[in-house]
C-alpha cells in the first residue's frame, strides 16, 4: 500500500490538509504520536480575534473566521464580538496604531466611545482610556477540535493512526516512514508536527529554525455573568472570555516552562500571576474568582513569525505546514490552501516559502 500523501501530525493543520487532499481524490493517512488534536490545537485558548492578528495575515484570518462560523456548534463556535482595551496613554497610542493598520487590512475594527464600552461590558474597570471593537471576534472550544476532525476524517473515509510517532524517514522512490505500527509508504509527505517540526525535519537532515513557545491558559470556577464578549489588552498580554457555563478562560501568551521534546510543559506561577492580575484589573469582579486549573501548550514559530507553508527545502515531494501565528483561527483555511498546493492547484492566497531567508524579512 502506497499512500498518495502521508501527513505527520494530526493537529488542525494536518487534519485540515487531509480533508482537502481527500476531496481532491488523494488517498491519505494521518499519523499522530499522541491522539488527534491533543497538541496545541486541543489546548489553546480558542480565541478567534481579528484584533490580535498580524496585518499581513489578515486575509487568511478573515477566511479562517468564515470557516469557524461554518463549523458552528460542533466546535463550540460563538461570534460574540470583542473589545481590546488600553489603560493608559502609551497603550492607547499602541492600540490606535495597531488597530488602524488592521482595519486598513480589512478587519471591521472600530474605536468605541466610553459609553458604548460601558453599555457593552458594564463590569469592566473604569480605568479604560480607549478601546477598539470588532464584531467579527469570538471564540471556539479548542477541546472539541480533536473530536470534530476525527469525525470529519471518518466521514471522509480517511485513514488515521494515533500513538504512531514517526521516528525515521527514508526516501528512495517513495517515502518510508518508521513508526511503532510498522512502515508507512507514501509518494508525498506533509510535515504538520506543530512545535515538533524541527526534530521531524531533522530526520531528513533539513534544518528548520523553529522555536517553541510555552503558552499558558487558565480557567476559573463558574462565575455569574461578567462579560459577553472577548476581552483583550492593547499589548496582547490578555485574552479573556466567559463560557456559557460561567467559567472564564484567561490567556495572553504568558510563558510556562519546558520543551516539546520533554513532554508536557509546566505552568509557571511567576507568569500566571501577572496574567491574572491583568485580568482582574480589567474586570475587578474577578477578584473573588477561584482558579480551577492552569495548563500549557507548545506553539511553534520561526524568526520572522510568518507561517511555514510550502515545499520542505531540498526534499522533493515533502511539504511542511506550521508555525502560523494565530494558527487556531487561521488553521482551517490555510490547511485548505496547503491541500490545494499539494494537489497541484493554484492556492487562492499565496503560501509562505519554508526556504525563505528568515533574517532578511522576505515576506
Amino acid at each position, binding site marked *: 500500500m502506497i499512500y498518495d500523501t502521508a501527513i505527520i501530525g494530526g493537529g488542525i493543520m494536518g487534519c485540515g490538509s487531509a480533508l482537502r487532499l481527500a476531496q481532491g481524490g488523494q488517498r491519505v493517512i494521518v499519523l499522530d504520536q499522541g491522539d488527534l488534536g491533543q497538541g496545541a490545537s486541543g489546548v489553546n485558548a480558542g480565541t478567534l480575534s481579528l484584533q490580535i492578528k498580524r496585518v499581513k495575515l489578515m486575509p487568511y484570518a478573515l477566511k479562517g473566521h468564515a470557516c469557524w462560523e461554518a463549523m458552528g456548534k460542533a466546535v463550540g463556535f460563538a461570534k460574540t464580538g470583542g473589545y481590546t482595551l488600553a489603560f493608559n496613554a502609551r497603550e492607547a497610542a499602541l492600540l490606535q496604531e495597531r488597530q488602524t493598520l488592521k482595519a486598513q487590512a480589512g478587519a471591521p475594527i472600530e474605536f468605541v466611545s466610553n459609553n458604548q464600552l460601558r453599555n457593552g461590558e458594564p463590569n469592566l474597570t473604569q480605568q479604560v482610556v480607549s478601546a477598539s471593537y470588532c464584531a467579527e471576534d469570538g471564540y471556539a472550544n479548542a477541546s472539541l477540535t480533536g473530536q470534530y476532525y476525527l469525525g470529519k476524517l471518518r466521514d471522509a473515509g480517511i485513514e488515521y493512526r494515533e500513538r504512531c510517532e514517526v521516528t525515521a524517514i527514508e526516501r528512495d522512490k517513495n517515502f518510508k516512514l518508521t513508526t511503532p505500527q510498522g512502515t508507512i509508504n507514501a509518494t508525498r509527505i506533509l510535515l504538520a508536527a506543530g512545535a515538533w517540526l524541527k526534530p521531524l525535519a531533522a530526520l531528513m537532515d533539513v534544518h528548520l529554525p523553529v522555536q517553541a513557545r510555552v503558552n499558558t491558559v487558565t480557567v476559573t*470556577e*463558574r*462565575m*455569574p*455573568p461578567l462579560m459577553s464578549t472577548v476581552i483583550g489588552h492593547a499589548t496582547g498580554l490578555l485574552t479573556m472570555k466567559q463560557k456559557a457555563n*460561567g467559567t472564564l478562560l484567561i490567556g495572553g501568551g504568558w510563558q510556562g516552562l519546558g520543551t516539546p521534546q520533554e513532554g508536557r510543559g509546566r505552568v509557571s506561577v511567576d507568569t500566571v500571576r501577572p496574567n491574572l492580575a491583568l485580568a482582574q484589573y480589567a474586570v475587578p469582579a474577578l477578584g473573588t474568582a*477561584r482558579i*480551577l486549573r492552569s495548563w500549557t501548550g507548545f506553539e511553534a514559530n520561526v524568526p520572522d513569525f510568518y507561517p511555514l507553508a510550502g515545499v520542505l527545502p531540498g526534499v522533493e515531494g515533502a511539504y511542511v505546514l506550521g508555525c502560523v501565528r494565530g494558527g487556531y483561527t487561521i488553521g482551517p483555511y490555510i490547511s485548505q490552501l496547503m491541500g490545494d498546493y499539494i494537489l497541484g492547484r493554484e492556492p487562492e492566497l499565496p503560501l509562505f516559502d519554508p526556504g525563505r531567508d528568515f533574517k532578511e524579512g522576505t515576506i
Partner: protein
Amino acid sequence: MIRLVPNHALKIVRSAPVVFTFDGQSVEGHAGENLAGALLRAGRLHLRNAPANGGPRGAFCCMGLCQECTVRIDGQVVEACRTEVTQGLAVERAG
C-alpha cells in the same frame, strides 16, 4: 430474609465521633471523614447556589473537579469533597 453477602457495614471501624456546624446548625460526623460525605449522610444535600441562576447545587463529581460542593471555611472557599471533618469545624454556605 437471608443475607447472601457478608454485611461489610459491620466491619467499618469508625473514627471518633465529632460535631461540626453547617450554617450554624450542628452536624455529627467522624474525625477525618470526608466533609461532603458527612453532610450527605446528615441529609444536607444543598450546599450552595449556582452563580448564574441561583439554583440549588451540591456534591456532584466528588473528586474536586466540578466545584458544585464548595463551602466557606475560615473565610476560604474550599471543596467539601476535598476537606476532612474535624471537631468544631465551622462550615458556611459560600454563596
